[in-house]
C-alpha cells in the first residue's frame, strides 16, 4: 500500500486515492484535423512503460484534486508528485 503525497494535503494512504492512467496525454486542440491513426493514438494508446511512469491520480477521499505522480511501475517507488500544469519532472529510473 503506497503512501502518496497529495500536492495539496500531504502524505496520505493510497486507499484515499484513485489512479487515472497516464498523465500528459493532452487532448488534441483540433481533433477534426487529425488522421484516424493520430486520433486513435490519443484515444487508445498509452506508453505502458516498465519503469518510470508519469501518471494521473485523484485524491478521491480527500481534496478531490487531480495531480500527477512519477512512479516506477516495477518497484512502485514514487519519485515525485506535482500539480497539473506544473513542469514534468525529469526522472531517470
Amino acid at each position, binding site marked *: 500500500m503506497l503512501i502518496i503525497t497529495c500536492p495539496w494535503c500531504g502524505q496520505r494512504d493510497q486507499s484515499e486515492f484513485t489512479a487515472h492512467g497516464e498523465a500528459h496525454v493532452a487532448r488534441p486542440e483540433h*481533433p477534426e484535423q*487529425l488522421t484516424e491513426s493520430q486520433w486513435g493514438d490519443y484515444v487508445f494508446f498509452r506508453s505502458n512503460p516498465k519503469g518510470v511512469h508519469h501518471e494521473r491520480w485523484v485524491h478521491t477521499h480527500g481534496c478531490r484534486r487531480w495531480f500527477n505522480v512519477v512512479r516506477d511501475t516495477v518497484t512502485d517507488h514514487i519519485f515525485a508528485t506535482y500539480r497539473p500544469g506544473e513542469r514534468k519532472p525529469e526522472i531517470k529510473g
Partner: protein
Amino acid sequence: MSVQQFRLERESTINRSRVIRFWFNDTAHEGYQGDTLASALLANGVRLVARSFKYHRPRGIYTAGPEEPNALVQLEEGAYTEPNRRATEIEIYDGLRARSQNCWPSVDFDLGAASSFFDRLLPAGFYYKTFMWPRSFWMLYEKYIRRAAGLGRSPMEADPDCYDKTYAHCDVLIVGGGPAGIQAARAAGLAGARVILADERPGLGGSLLGEKYVINDRPAMDWVDERKSELSDMPEVCVLTRTTVTGYYDYNFLVANERVSEHLGPHNSGAPKERLWKIRARHVVLATGAIERPLVFADCDRPGVMLSSAIRNYIHRFSVLPGKRFVILTNNDTGYRTALDILDAGGMVAVIDIRSHPAGELPDTARNTGIRVLEARTITAVNYAKGTIRSVEVMQLSEDCTQVTGNAERIRCDTVGVSGGWNPTVHLFSQGRGTLRFCERNQCFVPDRPSRNNPVTLAGSCRATWRLGDCLKEGFDAGISAAGEAGFAMPGMTHEEDAVQDTDHHEPRPVWILPCEHPIGQGRKKHFHEMQNDATIADIALADREGFSSIEHLKRYTTTGMGTDQGKLSNLNALLALSEIQGVPMSGGRVTTYRPPYTPLTMGSIVGHDRRDLFLQRRKTPIHSWHDRAGAVYEDVGDWERPRYYPGPAETMHDAVQRECLAVRQSCGLLDASTLGKIDLQGRNCRWLLNMLYTNAWDNLSAGRCRYGLMLNEHGMVFDDGVTTCLDDNHYHMTTTTGGAARVMNWIEEWLQTEWPDLEVFATSVTEQWAVASLSGPNARALLSGLTDVPLDDASFPFMSCRNGTVAGIPARIFRISFTGELSFEINVPARYGLALWKALMDAGEEYRICPYGTEAMHVLRAEKGFIIAGQDTDGTVTPMDLGMDWIVSRKKEDFLGKRSFDRTDTARPGRKQLVGLLTEDPEFVIPEGTHVVKAMKNAPPMEMLGHVSSSYMSPNTGRSIALALIADGFNLKGQTLSVALMNGTGHHVTVTDPVFLR
C-alpha cells in the same frame, strides 16, 4: 481419561495448578494452562493426529510452531468450527474440541489409505492431467477424488464471533519477540521512538522459550522477564503477543493478526476473537528467527518423526518429552544439542550423523556423556506399526551420500528427531520486495537488498546470525539504527554486553535428501519433502521429465509449497532436489516469491466489522420511511435502496407492476426520484462546458428551459444521459442517472482540473440536497394545481421548462419533463421537506386514485415510449447513431467530447449493433433480458448471433410483451422475423420493430 505419561517434572511456561480438560477425536484428555493442543496431545502419548491430504497416510506432530505441515485439525464444532488449524499453535482451554481431518471413517482406520487407491490415482500434475481425461473417466472417479481432496470442512453457519480491526502508526515496528527482537525494542524504546513489538506466541522469548540457554549466569527466561518489565515501563512501547505479522506491503505497511480471546474458548469472553492490525511503520526491524530444515529420507513422514528443535521446544517450553527412545538424524551440530537435552530429561537417545568424524564441542560432549553416535550413516527405513514407530534401519552412506552400503542395523526407538540445519525466516522480507541471495556457507537463502520503499533492518537468525550473543548485540544495534532512521538518534548509546554461554556452530554437511537401498521413486518407500500436500522427491523428478522444470512450474505441478503452510519446510529441499536433478548449482537457481499471508488469516479477521449493515453504506431518500410503511419492495441502484414496486394484498410483483403502469397512464402516479444525480454548475463558462460534454447545442437555451443530453466518452460511446436546465446564463442544474452521478461528477472535475483549468465553472454535487417527487399522468396537472402557486397551463409552463414556486407551502423547483411520456412534473424541494411534500401529494391525489410506483413500473413505462436507460440499453459500445438518436447530435458544433470518433472506420461502418424493438410471436411471452438474438434457431451452436435483448417487459398499456435489443444492422432488419435463443435450448420467433411501442 489418559494420564499425562510423557509429562516431565521440570519447570516451564505451563501452569500446573490449572488443569485443562479437552477433547480430541471424542476422547477426553487433560493438559495444563500454557499447553498447545500439540504439547498436550504429546503429553498424553497421542501421536497419530491426522491423515495426509492426498494419500491419507497417517501423520503426527512434526514441529512446535507455525511451520507445522501435518497436525492440522478441525477446531470446535457447528458455527464455531474452523478447519486447518495447526495443533502446534492452538492454546488449549477448558472444553476445547478438536478432531482429525481427512479421516474416514476414523484416524486410526482410514479407508482411503487402506485401499492405497489414491497412490496410483494421484501422480504429480494430477489436477492438470484430469483435464486431458475422457469425460467418462472423470464421471467414474469424481466422487472418490472429491472425498479425498480438500482439507477440513468450512462452517455451514454464520460466524457468531466478532472481529476487530485497528490502524496503528509507529516509528519502529519490530517483528519477532525473541532475543534480537527484545533487544531492538529496548534500544528503540530507550531512544524515545514509538515502538510496536509483535510476536506470534503468547509470551516473549522466541527461541529462548525452547532452549536451555544461560544469560548473565541465570536461566535465559529470567532475562526475558526482566526485559519484559523494562519494556512495559516504557510508555511509547507497545508489546503485542499472540500477534502474527502476516503481510509486508509497500511503504512499510504491515498487517498483523492478533488472537485476542481465542485462547479463552468460544463462549468465554465478550472480547473480539481476533483483531487485524494495519500498521504503518517508519522503520521495520525483522527479527523473525529461523526454522529448522528437515532431512528427507525413506518414509520420513511417519508419526513420531519430528524436527529436533521441536523436541527441545516440547521439553523446555511445555515439560513434555515426546517419546521414550529417540534417534536423532542430523547433518550438523544442532542435533547433538537435542540429544543432550533428551538425555537430561531422562530419555534414551542415539545420534545418526551423516558426516564422517564430526568434531566440535557438541559432538564431543555428546560422546563424553555416553550417547551412541553413528557416523556417516543414514536412516533407510522407518518401521511403523499400530500408530507408533518401532525401530529404524540404519546403513552406511557412500562417500558422496548418494547410496547406502553394507548391512542395515536396526535401532529400537519410538521417536526420530531430524536436523538439517537452519533456514532463516525471510518470508516477510521477501514479501516486502527484499531480494534474497543464496549463502554458500550456510546453504540457505538469506536477505540481500531491501526495497527502497521499505526501510528495514534485520537482526538475528533471520539473517543467519546463529550465536545468541551475536543476536543480542545485533538486535540492540538494529533498534538504535531503526530509531535513528525514524528521527530518534541517540549518539553514543552502546550495547551493554550480556554474558552468554554459547557453543560453536559448524556448518551442515550440504546433504538433505538421503538415499535408501532402492533408488528414490522405486520400491515402496516414499521420500516426502512436502508433507502437507503429499509431494515426494520422485514427483519432482517426474515433473522435470514432463517438462515442468522451472521452479514456478514445478511448484504448481507437484503442489510443493501450495499448502496452508506455503512450504515453510519443503520449498528449500524442493529447490535442492531440482538443482540436483538438473545439475545446476543452488546459487544459480531461482527462489519462488513469498506471498502474504505468512500464516493463513481467517475470513472473519479480514472482514472485521464490515459485514451486514456495516458492509456498505446504504443510501436512503428522505421519503424512505413512507415507502417502508407502504410495504415497498426495494432494489439496489448503485448504493441506493429504491422502491421497486408496492405490492398490494395478495399481489405478485407482476400484478403490482402492471397495476402501477396502468394507473400512471390512466390517472396519475408518484415516483420517488430523489436518487437522480444532480449537479449544480455555476460560472461564466458553463455553457462552453455543456457544449463539450453533450452532443447537442446549448448556445440558445434560455433561462427556465430544460434540455435532454447524451454524454459520450472520447470513444464516441454513450455513458450517461440526463436533463440539464438553465437557471440563468451562469447557473445550470444538471441531472444524471442514479448510478452514474459520481462518474459524471468525476468526469466534469477531471476535465476542469486537468485540461481546461482556465474555465470558470464550479461543479457541486447536490444529489442529496434535493428530494424529488415525480408526478406523472393525465391528472398530474389537475392534482398539482391545487397545491401550488405556479401556473401550470401549457402557455405559462411549457414542456421542457422549469419554474420556481411553492408546493404545499414548501419552496420548490418544478421541472416539466417526462420519462414516462405522460404529462409529468418533477418537484424538487430541499431534502428535509421531501417527506412532507410526498405526503401532501398523496393526500391531494386521493381523489385521482394516485398510485405510488416503483422503478420497475418506471422501466416499463419508459420502454413503452422507447426511452433508453444508459447502462442498460447501452454498454459502452453504443453511439448515439446506434441508438437511432442522430437528432441529438449537433451537425454544427466543431467539437465535443467523442465527436471525432464518429468518423473512425469502425464507428462509421454500416451493420453495427443498433437499438430496435422486438415483438414476440406469442404476445404473452416475455423474453429474459440478456437473451441472444439469432438469425435462425438451430439444434445446436454455432448459430449466427446478431445481438442481445437489453430490456424486456410485459406492457399493460400495449397489452403485450415488448423488448428492446441491440442487433447487428438492426435498422435494416425492421419487419423481419428473427429468433431469440432461450436457455432451455428452444427458440422463439420475434419481429424487429421500431423501439417506440406506444405513441
